[in-house]
């Protein structure tokens, strides 16, 4: 699946703009697991996540001319497309807030099997991080990043004041960043 040669982001962008299908295939091999992981986390449904992943890569292929490297890295751009497409899909499915929080609580265990299959080293790193973040810190990060919840929605879900949401999010992010340095 993977060749020895690794392309830089600039080479990938150039290849995509030149409509190079070999580069597209390489891009898919290298980035689809990360993007599929995001879609799966947001949607908590393999079929919907698969459909979304396909839509995301078609958008990347068709809209590469809109990508502006001055505004950010290619991976960040692709992640934004994935989050937006997945969150649109989630909203179209009219998920209720309590369903959102239920998904966040469940999925850590649900996807452990897949993670092991994909890359055991990453899985170990993830377990290490998840173990040390407390449940509320994990939920805050996941609700905001993956579910696209606003500060108000998170305050409602966790039943805490709005100002507290900001403080706790910041602490959760700082903790996450420190934990990532240890793996």
């Amino acid at each position, binding site marked *: 699946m993977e060749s020895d040669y690794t392309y830089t982001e600039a080479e990938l962008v150039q290849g995509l703009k030149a409509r190079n299908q070999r580069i597209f295939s390489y891009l898919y091999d290298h980035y*689809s697991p990360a993007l599929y992981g995001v879609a799966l986390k947001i949607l908590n449904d393999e079929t919907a996540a698969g459909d979304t992943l396909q839509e995301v890569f078609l958008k990347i292929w068709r809209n590469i001319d809109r990508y502006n490297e001055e505004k950010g890295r290619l991976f960040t751009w692709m992640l934004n497309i994935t989050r937006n497409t997945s969150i649109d899909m989630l909203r179209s499915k009219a998920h209720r807030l309590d369903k959102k929080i239920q998904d966040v609580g469940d999925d850590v265990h649900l996807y452990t099997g897949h993670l092991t299959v994909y890359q055991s080293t990453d899985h170990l790193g993830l377990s290490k991080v998840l173990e040390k973040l407390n449940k509320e810190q994990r939920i805050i990060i996941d609700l905001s990043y993956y579910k696209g919840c606003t500060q108000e929605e998170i305050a409602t879900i966790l039943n805490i004041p709005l100002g507290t*949401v*900001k403080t706790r*999010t910041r602490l959760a992010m700082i903790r996450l960043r420190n934990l990532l340095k240890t793996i």
Partner: protein
Amino acid sequence: MSEQRFITSGIIELYVAGMATEQEARELEAATAQFPELAAEVEACRRDMEQYIRLQAVAPPPAIKEHLLRMVSDETKLIE
């Protein structure tokens, strides 16, 4: 807001986590265009968030790639 106040306010973390309000995001984006150090802070935080995301990677079903490559190939032929 001064550059240092952005860094200590926690807005960067909220922004990267996707939770900043539209106004907060606009203010931060305007400030990063002005202060390279602030832009570097946001980028460092974003890279960490992206590492957390990468840790949660999952291999997609193989059929998706085949289907995509076929669609892209058909589209390219159509344009040519």
